[in-house]
């Protein structure tokens, strides 16, 4: 391998990892919701869009840094999620329909309304938060003067990546160590058993949906410095979230991180070596492969089967 080839490969893997970390945060919200409620939430990307608009409004009117706006966007999205779950999704889930997937229409409807309200309020213009550090980066050749290759590491991407990891860490702690977190996991594993053990399943669902929305909302805040915003951007991120959820396994936070990173690196590698036009095919091929060969998610390969699972 010549030096330029090494450079291409390293840069590809690096950007894949950074992208994967961000993808993971979008995926975690969905993996929680899908894990606990077994519903396919097609409004996931739209919730992210709402989070991004909150960051945008805070930036353009009060000049608040998009990263700080997580503190506002996450609680706001939590409330929105709680509202949606309590008044719209729960009533539909309670009735016994022939096809349980009928909530899909509900989430499609919610997505439509959210995107359309955004269009009405903000028009369909493309919005950005032009922060000063948008294109700042660290370069290998600045540190190591005689380096034969040049690798760059973008500042906002790195910050977003670290925030994503921090949030995921916090969530992992919440789910693993607190009572409420444990109840949520119990609900995800076996709803009826959890009910018997005295878990308020209804409440856990509401909290989970709120939590999932808050997570994807914060993902929106992390995305806006490196991306842009318009009312119809939700769809593509919903798809990404599906892929990660399946890769990582329903309801598994660690799985979502691993899934996100795998997806990011895989997508980067296909972009470089197979052509970027094919990158979406690569994404969905690993998605299908994961669905078929490791339906429990990547993490199931690493953990030994526990009793009763």
């Amino acid at each position, binding site marked *: 391998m010549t030096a330029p080839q090494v450079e291409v490969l390293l840069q590809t893997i690096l950007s894949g990892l950074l992208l994967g970390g961000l993808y993971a945060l979008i995926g975690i919200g969905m993996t929680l919701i899908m894990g606990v409620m077994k519903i396919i939430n097609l409004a996931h990307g739209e919730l992210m869009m709402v989070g991004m608009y909150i960051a945008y409004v805070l930036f353009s009117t009060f000049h608040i840094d998009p990263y700080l706006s997580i503190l506002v966007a996450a609680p706001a999205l939590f409330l929105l999620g709680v509202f949606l779950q309590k008044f719209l999704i729960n009533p539909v889930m309670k009735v016994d329909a022939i096809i349980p997937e009928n909530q899909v229409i509900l989430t499609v409807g919610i997505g439509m309304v959210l995107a359309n309200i955004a269009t009405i309020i903000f028009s369909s*213009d493309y919005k*950005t938060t*032009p922060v000063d550090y948008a294109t700042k980066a660290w370069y290998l050749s600045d540190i190591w003067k005689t380096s034969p290759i040049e690798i*760059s590491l973008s500042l906002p991407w790195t910050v977003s990546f670290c925030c994503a990891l921090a949030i995921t860490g916090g969530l992992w702690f919440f789910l693993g160590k607190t009572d409420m977190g444990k109840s949520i996991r119990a609900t995800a594993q076996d709803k009826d058993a959890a009910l018997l053990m005295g878990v308020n399943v209804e409440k856990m669902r509401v909290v989970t949906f709120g939590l999932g929305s808050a997570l994807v909302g914060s993902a929106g805040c992390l995305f806006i410095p490196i*991306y842009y915003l318009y009312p119809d951007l939700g769809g593509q991120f919903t798809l990404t979230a599906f892929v990660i959820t399946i890769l990582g396994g329903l309801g598994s936070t660690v799985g979502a991180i691993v899934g996100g990173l795998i997806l990011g690196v895989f*997508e980067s590698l296909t972009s*470089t070596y197979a052509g970027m036009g094919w990158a979406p095919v690569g994404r969905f091929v690993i998605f299908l492969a994961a669905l078929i060969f490791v339906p429990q998610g990547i993490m199931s390969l690493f953990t030994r089967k526990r009793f009763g699972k």
Partner: protein
Amino acid sequence: MKRIVVVLLTLLLSGLFSSTLFAADTFDLVIPLPLTGKTAKFGEMMKRSYEMAAEEINAKGGVKKKKIALSFEDSGAKPETARAIVEKLIDTKKQPIIVGEYTSACAKAVAAVAEERKTPYLVVASADDDITQKKYKYVFRQNPVNAHYSDSLIDFIAKVVKPKTMVILYESSAFGTSGAEAMAKDAEKAGIKVLLKEKYEAGSVDFKPLLSKVKATQADVIYMVSYVMDASLLMKQIKELRIDAKLFAGGAAGFAIPEFIDNAKEAAEYVITATLWTPQLKYPGAKEYADKYKAKYKDFPSYHGASAYSAIYVVKDALERAKSWTPDGIRDALKATNTMTAFGPVRFEDKEGYQNQNFTDTFVLQVIKGEHETIWPEKYANKKYIFPIPTWRERR
């Protein structure tokens, strides 16, 4: 609750049938365009521009003493819906001329209907070459075809930059594909070797893998055909990776709109782009239109808006000359159009295998100190181009 639903539905339906009656002293023009969906931004810009033109015309007394009454229908960039709207306009409303639409897919659907129903259709901003290559008699196009978008750009590159190699990146859409193919052909003619020609999915987040491959080719020119924000993401990430090509060039669309500079900021500096129109042009009314638009909506319009604005004037001109306000009368008048607009001269010619196609000059813009400046062709230039451009490391 149920009552509310019932009341809402009744309101909806009654709203439908109430407002169809208009006084006869207006000329009703319903324009289909995308107001929802991914291309809504351009629909919105064109809608504002159509409205501005109609207001101006009405303030000066309208067309043959009739006021132009504009209204808009959202096609959501779906060909079936666009077709539905146009069928309705031709059939129920008996509108003698169709103007509008944005995406090439919708324009093709509308063009086919217009031709079948023998109603003139003025294409305003859809660039796909074959819309006016189908021997349609009733389809007119005001904007140049995609194959010609970069005429001036390639001229500039050949005369000033004189590169040996080039990389072409384009988005996977009809617009991107035909733009990239036209450029590849032009480059070959000019003796430039195309090292890499690659497409990407519009809306991608991370271009760095692709760009690091581009970097390894060390091409002289990087030419990109991108919509809106992909353009600024590409430039931002090019800056991050410090890819030092001799020139970064864009093929209209995303590079030519003000949001490109707002978002890419210093990464946008020195980037050149092809465009069909700029606010600095000395066409009559161009500057006035641009200033008025900016005053009202805070940003300069791109060529899409200018084309829409001028289209209403072209329609007015045709209506004034038309022997009768029937589809055929207006078609004949449109065919004979020879007028000057804020978008430039408009004449619908049959040449190079196109029918009823307007051929205008295209221009090259360069971002200089955070503004789009016209640099080529020289007779239109308002600033001297900057070339060679500094490397990323020198910029700081």
